[in-house]
């Protein structure tokens, strides 16, 4: 069954590792839906969060091949329900919402978002949440025909159990 799998890899923070990792997805013609690389809580070790749609059989083989990359220290894959996942999104909204009564309030209170910039031509709203929550707000704003621009981050994740425990032994 094809579904979303999130691969979390800890690697040496070295040039070329990103290419080696993505090349293994490319080789199997798997499209990467989102990718985030940043320094982990340990200095010199990068954390990759890569999400892609594929089957369990393929992701399992892929992860074993990822482990073979010399600079890769640890790799696991998860389905999204195993992880605490948050994304951040920015919505640029037409300033006419200010004139519509209750609209600003609706965004901030019922969607748990906040306004980070406001000027005569647009309002920028920031929201963190699951991808689903972020998408829902997007749809809401689109149906109200007020969404001007939209951008969102890749996933920021934590496993319910610790992933970095073994890394601390390095």
């Amino acid at each position, binding site marked *: 069954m094809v579904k979303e799998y999130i691969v979390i890899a800890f690697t040496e923070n070295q040039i*070329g590792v990103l290419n080696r990792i993505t090349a293994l997805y490319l080789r199997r013609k798997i499209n990467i839906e989102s990718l985030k690389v940043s320094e982990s809580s340990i200095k010199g070790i990068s954390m990759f969060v890569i999400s892609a749609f594929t089957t369990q059989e393929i992701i399992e*083989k892929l992860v*074993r*091949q990822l*482990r073979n990359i010399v*600079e*890769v*220290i640890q790799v696991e894959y998860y389905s999204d329900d195993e992880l605490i996942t948050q994304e951040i999104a920015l919505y640029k909204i037409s300033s006419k919402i200010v004139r519509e009564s209750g609209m600003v309030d609706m965004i901030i209170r019922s969607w748990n978002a906040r306004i980070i910039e406001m000027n005569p031509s647009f309002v920028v709203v920031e929201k963190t949440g699951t991808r689903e929550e972020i998408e829902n707000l997007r749809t809401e704003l689109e149906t109200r025909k007020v969404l001007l621009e939209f951008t969102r981050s890749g996933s920021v994740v934590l496993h319910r159990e610790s992933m970095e425990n073994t890394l601390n032994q390095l």
Partner: protein
Amino acid sequence: MANKPKIKGAEALLLSLIAEGTDTIFGYPGGQVIPIYDHLYHFTDRINHILTRHEQGAVHAAQGYARATGKVGVCLVTSGPGATNLVTGIADAMLDSTPLVCITGQVPCSLLGTDAFQEADTISMTMPISKWNYQVTQASEIPSAIARAFYIARSGRPGPVVIDISKNAQVEEFDFSYKPCIYLRSYKPHPELDLTLIDQAVQMINAADKPLLLVGQGVKLANAESKLLEFAEAAGVPMASTLMGISAVPNNHPLFVGNLGMHGNLAANEMTQRSDLIIAVGMRFSDRVTGDVKNYAPNAKIIHIDVDAAELNKNIKVDLPIHADAADALEAMKRGISYKDRSKWMAVAAENNKKEYEDVVLPSTDPQGEYISMYDVISTLAEVEKGNAVIVTDVGQNQMFSARYSKFNQTRSFITSGGLGTMGFGLPAAMGAKLGVPDREVVAIMGDGGFQMTMQELGTIMQNHIGLKMIVLNNTYLGMVRQWQQLFFGKRYSFTQLENPDFPSIAAAYGIANRRVERLSDLKAAIQELADAPGAYFLEVDVLPEENVFPMVPAGASLSDTICKE
């Protein structure tokens, strides 16, 4: 020790290579490696640099050298076209787990990314086909880069490493000191043996009635040949070999039942299908070995031992995957094993060998004694060389006949391009092998097509007095493709016929002793002449133009659907 004079990056590179035990480099100079060549000029007492005629020749020679000796093969080429010419050999070494360190020149780091003259993005190009690669842009990085390169190339599952060195790093001066690499925290090449898995394996083997050991190249790479034989003998388990495993087990071993796969032996394939327990060691269940995976070894449980965890459950779902070095696992398994007489099971081998002999081998030789089959050439060579030669093949029918009919007493004696199937591999690889094991007889077996892909290396053989024996099996066809066209494409021989030059005169032009044989009656004497020749010798044998390699498991078919004739 204090105040050592600074040295240049180029010299540091050569000292680092020597520290890693390099005695031979295959290479080709150019603008971005001239500083290295300038230092090589002063190192000829310690490093034997072999100037090939093409960079592809250099990398295949390094592969042949590595495969024959077990050491890391080293090649050195310039940037741009020099580096791109290595690509085929690097990919070949990756698929066949051959330890290589390939050093490529690069434009000065100030020019990187500017499309400078002879700039190619070697790192990106070789990334998916190398085990590791690294770009050096400062002289001070050279010792540690070379140390890591050798460590990574030869440990775990070996493979090719590319070190790209920008020209400025070759000429910069720095304080040189060398420390070999023995540990990288992100890289665990030697898996810890899980003894509970070994116990399970031993129980399964002790209980099995029809066990079969599949021997891959991993046995050679782990230097586990004698451990394998001890284990097989202690257990009474027959052994079959993959193409890459050939020569790990001597052909005349009573438990050896032949080769696996597409052009393997009936016995080995049939026993795979009938076996109740497969014990695969250092092999990867390539599609050329398994045929249709759905009908592969239908009656068997499978134990798979490999040093590369990514191979476990990759091509075939197995019952007991064991992530281990072959030598560790075989030694540990031997302890608990009990001997079982399996003469009834071994009789399956004898029965199939008889069938194969009658259906395939016997009909190969022309009863009139006129036409020459590739079988005649390879089996006569095996007889004359008494199983002591290193056989290096090219790709195609010549390769499969060599695999089928050569005989070996010693390991690391069969060198072939298994995974990539690279035509043009044979001649340069054989050259490298001969330089690696100069005291052994080395024979290159090639087709008329493949020989012409890298035949410029005759120049290297001439210049360096390499005593290589060469046989071109001339069938005037790209024979293996023609065979498929005959069997599966209605005999439409689309662009597979070759009009060939007079091969012996080409050898003669390089001053190499040569001969052509057209009749079976002359064959034995010619091969004897080849074997007796003190130096290089070139033999063209005009073989049947439309001969086929049998038995054959058609691509995608089950091992049970082997065909033995047209």
